[in-house]
C-alpha cells in the first residue's frame, strides 16, 4: 500500500467489483458530497450492502457517532440519494424505500413537541440505532474475518509427495450378521420358511454331507466304516449316518457291497469306479 493512502479504506469497497472504472475510465475520487458522476452512481450504490450500509456511510462521513444521528440531516441526504436513483431510473431495491419510510417516520416524531410528562418515552431513533449498531458489528466482524490469516491466501498447505503405496488388496470384511441377513432374505424370497423346510435339520448333517462328498470325490471307493469315528461319540456317528443317508437319498453317493457281509463301500454317484476296483487292502480293516 502506498504511503499516500491513509489506512482509511473506502466504506463501499466491494472487492469483486472494480468500481474504479466507469465505462473504461477510472473514477479517482469518491464523492465528497452528494454529487456523484451520474455514470458512477449505479456502481457507487452497488458498492453498498443495502440501506443500513448507506446510512452508516452517511453518518461516518460526517464523523458522527451512530448514537448521535442528526436525523433530519441524514434523512435529507438519504432522500437525495433515493431521488438520484429514481432520476436515473435505477431499479430501487425495496429495502431502500423501507428505510426511507422509517427515517421519515422518525423525523416526524422528533419534530413533534414532546410532552414533558412523556419523558420515559423511547427515543424514536432507538430502533434505528439498534439496527445500525447491530449491522455495524457484523460489518466489522466480516472485515475481521477477512483479516484472519487463511489458507491459500496467507498460509499454505504443505504438499509433499508421499512414498509409493504398496498395494495390499485387503479382502472385504463380512460380519456374521450380514451373512445371516443375506441368508434370511434369500430364504424368504425362496419361501423356504414354509413348514416343509423349517424342520429341525441339523446343519451339522449338511456340513458332514459336504465332508463325505469331498472324501469320495476322488472317484475311488471309500470304506463305509471309515466315515465313522468312535471319538466323535454317538452324536457324531448319528450325524455321519444321517449325512450318508441324505446323500444316498439325493443320489449323490452309491453304496456298494460285493457280497453279503462284505465290507460296504461308498463312491460318488456316477463315478467310473466299478466294483472290481474295490481296494482289497481297505477291505481288510
Amino acid at each position, binding site marked *: *500500500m*502506498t504511503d*499516500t*493512502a*491513509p*489506512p*482509511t*479504506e*473506502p*466504506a463501499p*469497497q*466491494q*472487492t469483486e467489483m*472494480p*468500481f*474504479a472504472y466507469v465505462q473504461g475510465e*477510472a473514477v479517482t*475520487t*469518491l464523492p*465528497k458530497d452528494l454529487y456523484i458522476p451520474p455514470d458512477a452512481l449505479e456502481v457507487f450504490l452497488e458498492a453498498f*450492502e443495502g*440501506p*443500513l450500509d448507506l446510512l452508516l456511510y452517511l453518518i*461516518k*462521513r460526517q*464523523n458522527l*457517532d451512530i*448514537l448521535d444521528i442528526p436525523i433530519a440531516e441524514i434523512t435529507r441526504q438519504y432522500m437525495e440519494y433515493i431521488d438520484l436513483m429514481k432520476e436515473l431510473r435505477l431499479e430501487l431495491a425495496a*429495502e431502500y424505500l423501507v*428505510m426511507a419510510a422509517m427515517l421519515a417516520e422518525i423525523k416526524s416524531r422528533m419534530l413533534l413537541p414532546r410532552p414533558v410528562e412523556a419523558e420515559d418515552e423511547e*427515543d424514536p*431513533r432507538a430502533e434505528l440505532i439498534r*439496527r445500525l*449498531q*447491530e*449491522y455495524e*458489528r*457484523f*460489518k*466489522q*466482524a*466480516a*472485515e*475481521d*474475518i*477477512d*483479516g*484472519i*490469516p*487463511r*489458507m491459500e*491466501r*496467507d*498460509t*499454505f*498447505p*504443505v504438499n*509433499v*509427495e*508421499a512414498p509409493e503405496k504398496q498395494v495390499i488388496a485387503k479382502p472385504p470384511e463380512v460380519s456374521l450378521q450380514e451373512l445371516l441377513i443375506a441368508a434370511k432374505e434369500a430364504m424368504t424370497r425362496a419361501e423356504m420358511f414354509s413348514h416343509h423346510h423349517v424342520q429341525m435339520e441339523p446343519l451339522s448333517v449338511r456340513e458332514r454331507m459336504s465332508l463325505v462328498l469331498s472324501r469320495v470325490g476322488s472317484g475311488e471307493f471309500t470304506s463305509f466304516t471309515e466315515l465313522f469315528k468312535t471319538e466323535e461319540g454317538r452324536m457324531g456317528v448319528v450325524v455321519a449316518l444321517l449325512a450318508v443317508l441324505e446323500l444316498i437319498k439325493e443320489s449323490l453317493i452309491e453304496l456298494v457291497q460285493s457280497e453279503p457281509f462284505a465290507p460296504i463301500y461308498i463312491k460318488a454317484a456316477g463315478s467310473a469306479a466299478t466294483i472290481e476296483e474295490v481296494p482289497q487292502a481297505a477291505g481288510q480293516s
Partner: protein
Amino acid sequence: MSEQRIKHIVEALLMAAGKPLSLDQLLAVFGDGEKPERDELRAALAELQQDYAERGLELIEVASGYRIQVRQDMEPWVSRLTEDKPARYSRALLETLALVAYRQPITRGEIEDIRGVSVSTSIMKTLQEREWVRIVGHRDVPGRPAMYGTTKQFLDYFNLKGLDDLPTLMELRDIDTINAELELGLPGEAMPGEHLESGEGAEPDDTDEPRVVQVAVDTSEAGGNSETLH
C-alpha cells in the same frame, strides 16, 4: 520406538497428509507393538513445533487436528509461484459468513433482518460448497427454515482451533449511556478513531481519498495487500 523415530514418523505423516490430522488419526497408523502413548505423541508434536520455530514452516493446531503449513511470512514468495490469485470474497459473503459464525444457529431470514437486505441464494450455496457453512437443523416455525452453522473446515481454513478464537464482536452501546457521555462532553470522536486503526471502512473523513486507486491496487496484488490492510 525412540522419541526421534516417533517424531520423524509424525512429521512424515503431517507432511504427506497436507491437512490436519487428529491425535487419534496419528495414533492409528502405528502398529500394535509400536503404538506410542498420547503424551509421547504430544511431546513429538511440541518438539516439531520447536524445530520449525525459526523456519518458513509451522505446526499449528486447528479444529480438526495438527497441521504443518507454510508460514504467513512466506506468502510473498509462495504466491509468486503460482499465477492464480487467491479467491477474494465479497462483503456480502463475508458479512453472511460472520453472521453465521457469531450467531449460529441462524436462519437466512435472521441474517437478512440484521443485514437489512436479502441474502442471495448463490452466497449460501458458495458458503456450503466451500464447506464453511452447513445446515444444522430447522427452526420449528412455519416453513421450517434451515438453520446454518459453521463447520470444522471453516475453522481449519481460517487457522482457528475453535469458535472462541474468532475476534471478539464489537460492543453494543446503549443509547442512554451515550447520551450521558455526550452531556459530559465525551465526544463521538473516539469511536471513529478506533475504526481508523482497525482499517475499518467507515470513511470518517471528507478528504479526497485516492480510494479508487487503492481499489485498483488491491485488484492487482490481492494477496499481499489485503494482508497489510488488517
